[in-house]
């Protein structure tokens, strides 16, 4: 879950974004606090705070004084847009590179994607690698 070359605070921000994208934490709901993230992921609170601050400047979270961090209205839409933009670069390019290496053309890949979609588990299934300790 943690550790793949990206800075830790970026990974923390992505974990929080995942909660928003999959609807676990709704808009206007309270986001996990710095200390909750620090104890859950076993990282220094300053690192967690850096991840949270990144989301604040991105407009995903906002601060209510004395209460905590909340998910901004429109945050989910913002994140979906960003991730759809990244999709080609992050997933399709590596997929095509490996396909070329083993002699599969774009059409073969498209067929495999369709076949995969037919047997895939429904997208609503709960992702298993999500933290089970959520905002209380």
């Amino acid at each position, binding site marked *: 879950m943690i550790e793949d*070359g990206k*800075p830790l605070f970026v990974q923390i921000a992505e974990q929080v974004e995942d909660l928003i994208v999959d609807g676990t934490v709704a808009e206007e709901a309270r986001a996990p606090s*710095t200390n909750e993230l620090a*104890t859950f*992921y*076993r990282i220094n*609170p*300053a*690192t967690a705070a850096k991840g949270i601050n990144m989301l604040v400047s991105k407009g995903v979270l906002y601060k209510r004084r004395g209460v905590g961090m909340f998910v901004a209205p429109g945050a989910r839409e913002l994140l979906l847009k960003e991730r759809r933009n990244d999709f080609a670069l992050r997933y399709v390019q590596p997929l095509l590179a490996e396909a070329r290496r083993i002699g599969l053309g774009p059409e073969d890949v498209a067929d495999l994607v369709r076949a995969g979609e037919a047997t895939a588990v429904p997208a609503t299934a709960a992702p298993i690698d999500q933290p089970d300790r959520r905002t209380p």
Partner: protein
Amino acid sequence: MSAVIEVRDLTKSYKDAVALDGISFDIEQNAIYGLLGRNGAGKTTAMSILTAQNLPSSGQVKVFGENPYENPKVLSRMCFVRESQKYPDDATARHAFAAARLFFPNWDQGLADELIDDFQLPLKRTIKKLSRGQLSAVGVIIGLASRAEITFFDEPYLGLDAVARQTFYDRLLADYAEHPRTILLSSHLIDEVSNLIERVLLIDAGRIIMDQSAEDARAMATNVVGDAAAIDRAVGGREVIHRESLGRVASVTFLGHLDNAERSVLAAEGLELAPVSLQQLIVRLTQQRSAGAPHVAPAAPEGSLR
């Protein structure tokens, strides 16, 4: 942030050896520092001098802006958990905690009781008869429950098993989050503590060779695996801190950052990039230096390597 500890040109020499060789650094308030380095690098000596349990040969140490030596105002705000703390022969853990409670103004008995429970520490047995792990638990409990403004943990985990160490890390983080304070943790188990610490101080042969945030340290070096000739072209003039090869394939660790354009060039050449963990980085740096290599050149713009 303000510095709670300021060290300038600190040297400690013994008859035939120099333990600390003119080191200077600041410790900022309310952060967790990892004091890392090999055995004999000078970690314990530095901690002893900062807590006035040892005297410098030369140089200056200021804690809360004052000289800590025989200075009760300063000493009662610091807690030093030594790796091998000595206790009187007939002392029990209960005696040790009672004494700590008198000495540390912020002592939290509730936390101490919880920790005694966590570590299943026998209170009535004399400390002399405790196992190595139980002895370490006594120190860890005093270090955490004292809630001192500056707490030094010198390899506090000796003899603690993996479960007990995790308990220590979890308790440390949770209590630090609730009660921010300054913590210096010396450790060999770099992988275990690398996510806990905010800044890294790396001591090697009595000198500070790294003083920077853990985040920056983790991004300092990159490992690349692939065709040796292609790697040499890609790495260019960057400083290589480690190289291994297997036939035409090489694995090279170098200092410096790659931008996205450079990364895609490497990927197109079929080279695989991997991050270098703090532990790997420190092993490489201290190994390289002990092998007699020249000083590591500054990698970051502000010259965070010294």
